[in-house]
Every structure is written in structure tokens, then in C-alpha cells.
């Protein structure tokens, strides 16, 4: 497919996934504030940090504002730039316009309606009057879009690039999500093996909010029957093969898609290709044990490596560097 279009498919997938993830994180943090007896700053600050918006947020509102949940929500929902919900939906829709000819009509309509909903006067009203309803609507809109992509488009290259973008974005989001509260996980990690499994209510609330933020509460409980610990949580979110929001699942999917797009025999799977790099990251992750590991360092490595893979993909999308030799000229017709 056309390189420019492939690139926009990739970014469309990323932006839609990012919008969904931001809505999800905001929702989960709102619940956390109610459930955990934590200083509000400890609830909202990590969210601003993992979104990568901490410096610009502090510059605009001052460092103490990170405890102001309303301010944080406002910023991560409506600010015109950065990773805010509005910015992600706008960017997704802008990409969708460029790839309008490869998107299915249904998928286009879904993202276009979501965009118009945010651009019209209706959405601020819903935001003010029914915050949960607003975030739900945002998540439904993005999920509908991605769902329609899978159920109404040809499962060929455009969808592969789109889904690759979504999977890589999701992998990065899982890593950031865990990193958000890595401190509590690290503390718990140090106590692991100790007899006392008396997690205080705060930690459990935090972990549950992490699971909620990744829609993983039920899936986790099915596997662990209510036994919530830092170790089981981390293992679940990082390694659970059958959970579609675990890091391993996302990286595996991305690897498979890359192999599909550029079969290893095609010659593009060189030592420095995105495929090789991603496969190495996956192998590295699978070899990790999490007892006493430096979770923050591990997650930072994951975030850095996925970013590097993205850069490689953008280059590879441009196709092999040299055009093939052309056939000798046919005699030119002249009048």
C-alpha cells in the first residue's frame, strides 16, 4: 500500500487507542479518589506524570495544581494540544480524513461522529452534568471505531498498520499505567515472601484501580480468585498471554502483524528492523522475574524500546530505498 497512507493508518490506530486509554485512565483515577483514602495529589499527580504532561501542566497551573482533580481532568480532556482526549480524537479524525479511501464507511462515520460530538456544544454540557457519562461516551466512541475497523474492513495491509499502531500504543500505555504507581508496587515487592499478606486498603484500592484502568478486573479475578498482590498484579498486566491488554499480548500481536506485513524472508527483516527489535524486547520481557525487580527501570526500558520500534516502523513504511530497474523504453508514440 501507499507509504504515506500506511503511516497515517498507523497513527490513526495510535490516536484512537490513546484517546480510549486517556478516557479509561481518567475514569479509573476518579474512582480511586473515592475508594482509596489517599491524599488527592497522590491520585492525580501520577496521571499527569505518565501522560508526559507534567512539565507543561506545572508551567501553566503551578505544581500544587496537580492535586486539583478538576483541573487535571479539564486539562487531560480539553486542552487543545498534547495527549488530551480532544487532541487525540482530533488527530485521529485528521488522519481518518487522509486515509478516508481505505477506511470503511462505518469506521469513518464512527470517528467522525465522535469528533463532531466533541466539537459541538453538546459535549461540554455532558461533561459538566454527567462526567461518568461523558467518559463512557468517549470510550464507547473509540471502541466502536476500532471494533468497526476490525469487523468492516478488509483484513489486509491498511488494517494491519492500523492495528499495529493500536497495539504499540496500548503496550506503551500499559507500561505507563503500571509505572504510575510503581512506588507502591516496589514496596510490596520488597515484602514479598514475607508471611504477612495484609495489604492495607489503600494498596488494594490502588491495584484495583490499575486493573480497572486496563479493564482487567474480571479477567484478573477469574485467574486469581480475589488474591490481589503486587506480584500477581504485575505478572498479570505484563505477562498474561490470554489477556488482550497485557504487555506481552500487545507486543506479541505487534510482532505477528509486522511478520505479516513484511515476511521475514522478504529481506527487510534485517538485524536493525522493527521486527527484530520488537522480538528482542518480547524475549527479554518473557525472561524477567518480578520478585524484587526494579519495576520502574523495567517499565522505562519497555517505553523506550517501543518508541524505538515506532521510529523504525516509520522508516520501513517508506519501502525499500531503491526503485527496481525499469524495463527498456517502449518506442514513444508521437503524433
Amino acid at each position, binding site marked *: 500500500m501507499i507509504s504515506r497512507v*500506511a503511516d497515517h493508518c498507523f497513527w490513526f490506530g495510535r490516536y484512537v487507542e490513546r484517546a480510549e486509554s486517556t478516557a479509561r485512565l481518567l475514569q479509573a483515577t476518579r474512582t480511586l479518589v473515592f475508594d482509596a483514602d489517599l491524599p488527592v495529589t497522590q491520585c492525580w499527580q501520577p496521571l499527569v506524570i505518565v501522560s508526559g504532561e507534567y512539565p507543561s501542566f506545572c508551567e501553566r497551573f503551578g505544581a500544587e495544581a496537580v492535586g486539583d482533580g478538576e483541573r487535571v481532568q479539564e486539562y487531560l480532556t480539553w486542552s487543545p494540544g498534547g495527549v488530551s482526549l480532544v487532541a487525540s480524537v482530533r488527530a485521529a479524525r485528521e488522519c481518518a480524513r487522509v486515509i478516508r479511501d481505505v477506511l470503511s464507511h462505518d469506521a469513518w462515520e464512527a470517528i467522525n461522529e465522535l469528533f463532531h460530538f466533541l466539537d459541538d456544544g453538546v459535549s461540554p454540557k455532558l461533561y459538566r452534568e454527567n462526567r461518568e457519562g461523558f467518559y463512557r461516551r468517549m470510550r464507547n466512541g473509540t471502541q466502536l471505531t476500532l471494533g468497526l475497523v476490525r469487523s468492516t474492513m478488509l483484513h489486509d495491509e491498511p488494517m494491519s498498520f492500523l492495528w499495529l499502531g493500536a497495539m504499540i500504543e496500548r503496550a506503551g500505555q500499559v507500561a505507563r499505567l503500571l509505572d504510575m504507581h510503581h512506588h507502591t508496587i516496589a514496596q510490596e515487592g520488597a515484602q514479598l515472601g514475607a508471611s504477612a499478606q495484609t495489604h492495607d486498603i489503600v494498596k488494594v484500592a490502588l491495584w484495583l484501580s490499575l486493573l480497572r484502568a486496563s479493564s482487567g478486573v474480571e479477567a484478573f479475578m477469574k485467574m486469581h480468585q480475589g488474591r490481589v498482590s503486587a506480584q500477581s498484579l504485575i505478572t498479570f498486566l505484563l505477562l498474561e498471554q490470554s489477556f488482550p491488554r497485557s504487555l506481552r499480548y500487545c507486543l506479541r500481536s505487534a510482532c505477528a502483524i509486522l511478520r505479516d506485513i513484511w515476511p521475514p524472508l522478504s529481506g527487510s527483516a534485517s538485524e536493525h528492523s522493527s521486527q527484530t527489535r520488537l522480538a528482542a524486547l518480547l524475549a527479554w520481557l518473557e525472561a524477567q522475574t518480578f520478585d524484587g525487580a526494579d519495576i520502574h527501570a523495567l517499565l522505562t526500558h519497555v517505553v523506550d524500546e517501543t518508541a524505538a520500534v515506532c521510529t523504525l516502523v516509520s522508516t520501513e513504511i517508506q519501502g525499500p530505498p531503491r526503485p527496481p530497474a525499469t524495463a527498456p523504453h517502449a518506442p*514513444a508514440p508521437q503524433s
Partner: protein
Amino acid sequence: VPLTVPTASNLSLLAKYRPLDGTWDELVAPDGTARPHAQRTCALLNAVAATEFARFQSLAELSLYNQGVTFSVYSDQRGTEKIFPLCLVPRVLGAREWARTEQGLIQRVHALNLFLDDIYGEQRILSEGRLPADLILGARSYHPKLRHLAAPGGVRIPIAGIDLIRGPSGELRVLEDNVRTPSGVSYVVENRRVTKRIFQHSIEMAGVRPVEQYPIELARTLRALSPVDPDDAHTVLLTPGSYNSAYFEHTFLARHMGVELVEASDLYVERDTVYVRTTHGPKRVDVIYRRIDDAYLDPEFFRPDSMLGVPGLMGAWVRGRVALANAPGNGCADDKAVYPFVPDMIRFYLGEEPLLPQVDTFVCARSDDLAFVVEHLEELVVKSVDEAGGYGMLMGPQSTAAERAEYRERILSSPRKYIAQRRIELSTCPTWDPAHNELQPRRIDLRPYVLTRPDGTWVLPGGLTRVALVPGSYVVNSSQGGGSKDTWVLREPDRTGA
């Protein structure tokens, strides 16, 4: 079958409708009765109450908005998107009238194709003195560099849009030819889709010819131009990008033909072969449906100062390695100053009398015409020959003295750039007026689309009916408050033979 029964408090749509004096109305005769060919349509409309119609209108607009059937407005830097407003009252053309019109369109496009072949070939029409040579050869739209080059595929105007209007006498006549990159056809197909959803029953009852096959016919027309076997031809649609005002149409046509939508930067030329950059390396391109102007096709050929375009593209075209639709250089056939000579072209190349009349035109390049025009600006519509979209126009009867003085200056300083016509009382069609919740006469035109292949011509039944939504306005352009209507060409002549 009535959809609802109108009550006294909720009058039927056409009950109070009266055409304007001295103006032809497409559906309603001066006495307020339905015209013969529109009887069934008017009966169907009358079965709808105004309140219900208002609801249909807003449903239609919402549907177009959500689906992104929009155009971008140039005046806005960020490219605001608007829907092209659709009035659900259709414009109806009888079967007989359409059959005659179709023949006239085919004849005209045929002559224009022959004219371009001649102008970029022997120039017989000039050497035999049938057309003033300086008018053509001095035009900005004429490219001397393209002389003696055959167009790959053999058809210079595979896609034409011929603007027709109807004056008070009731006869359709040609107002303008568009043989470069005529736009608007996507709205024809989309309007029908929306109208069908809302008035499915009516369309069936009225016996309307379908328009959905346009993209298929277009794809076939493009393939037929291919320098390689049409079955193996790789066709792309070249767009200026997502900020272009017609971007929706570009994506629409690409999707419905199943061809790739490319931008100039996706293409490159090596050894006179055009390639598109793909994720698996370069892929050869054989046919390009380009929706960009000549000037931006190839900087090496047309505009050395331009960064836009595909360097070497014209070299590939010149050597017959890629087909371009429409061919470069077509501008000298739809130049407004050349338009007055099209009937002569038809006589010269085909030995036939033109089947479609056109509008009498003063060509300011001719000194008699110039003298008349500058003295009678108040009665005339002055048009700049190289502007479109309703820009660069003076509507004499509605103009101020200052505007006329300004145009007089402009015309006298470069007469070649202007033509003038008497204002035609464009025909009207009943049109929904949301401010008053009723139907009002609004002026309309018609742009039929003509596809030409080496082995034949196909005309889309009907075309794009544009309507001036502003009361009293004569300007139907989307950029200036125009909207559109579904155009119904009836299958069967009615009993009176209309």
C-alpha cells in the same frame, strides 16, 4: 399512496406555491398546476405535510454531516467543513427532453475533443480562419509545448461537465463547458442516496433513472486510457490533499472505484515511468485521474518555481507511458472567451448544427463587443475568463455605480480577460425555505457529466442541480450560498410526451 393526510392547519407543500413572473419553473406552470412531466412528483410531494418535510430536511442534513459529505471553504484558512446543503424537493427532467439533451451533450463534447486534437495538432480551424488564431494561441490556457503530442489513450476529455441553464422560454442551453477537472459528481450520488432513504417510495413511483453506477463507468473510462492492457492497468486518483475544497469528492470516487488516492509526493518518475511509493517498494502507475490543475502537475514542465507536483510526470505522459485524465492543456477549450465559438467548432468538425443552444456572448477581445460592453454594464453579467466558482463576476443589474466603474477600468485595461452576457432569468424549482417552513421558487442550473472512451460516450442521467438558496440570488456556487438538489430523469415519457 399518501404518506400522511394533510389537514387544514397543515397545508400540503405546493398548495400556496406560485412561480416568479417572467421565469420558467421546473415543476409548476404559471397557473400553479404541475407541469405534465412533473405531475407524479408533485402529487407525491403534496402528500407530505410541511411539518413532516421540515423533519425530513433536518434528517437529511444530519446524515450528510455525520458522514462527512462536506466541502472546505477556501476563505477560511483552517479549512472549515460545511455540508453542501441539499434541498429534498427534486428537480425533474422528462424522458424525451433528456434524450434530446443527451444527444446535444455528446455532440458538444465530441466537437471539443476534436478541437483540442486539432489545436495541439495541425490547427486547421485556425489556418482556415474559422476561429481567431490570436484568441487561442495568446491564451494562458494554451500550452505551445504540448503541440504535436498525442494524448495517451486518444481521448483528451474523458470527463466533462457541461453547465446548462434554462431561460424563460423553457429551453435548456449551455452556459459553460468544464473540460479540465469538473467537480460535483459525488454530490449527485450522495444526494440520491439520502433522498432514496427518505423518499424511497416516491422515487420508485416516479420511475427515476439511477445514478449510482457513475464510479463504475468512470473506472471503466479511466482503464480504457491505459497504455498497458486495461485489465492490468494500475489507476490512481491524484488529489492536492485533505485541505482541498473537493477532498470529499476525491475520497468518494477513490473508494467507489476501488483505486488508490495519492498525493503528488507519493509519486515519482524514473526513466519515464511513474511509480507510487508503497510499503513494499515502488509500484508502476499507468493511469492517473488527476484532480489537480495543469500548473501543479510537473514543476519541471509547467512551473520551474513550484515545489508542488511530480517532477518528470509530463515526460512520462509525452512518451505515452502514463495516461492523464483529463489531458493537460485542455484549458483552451473551456476558456470563457473560446465558448462563443463552440457552435462553429461543431459545424467545422462534425458538419452538424449544434443540438443545444447557448448563451449569446460578447467577447471583449473583439473591439465592437468591447465598445458595447463598457457602455451597457448595467444590463450585463461580466465574467473573468480565467476564474471560476462565481468569483470575478459582475452582476450588472444588481451592481453599484462604483463596482461598474471598477469593472470598466479592468475590462479596458485587459479586454482579453473578460466576456459579457445578458443576464438570463434562470429557471426556478420549488425549494425548501427553512426560515418560513414552506416552498419558495429558487434559481437553479444543471451540470451533466459526460464520460468519453475511445469506443463510446456515456452520459450520467441528470447531473448536479445547483440551487441559489439565497432569495433572489442568481449565483448557485457552493462557495456563495448555493445548495443542491437530487435530479430525477424519468424513465418513461408521460402521456403528453414530455
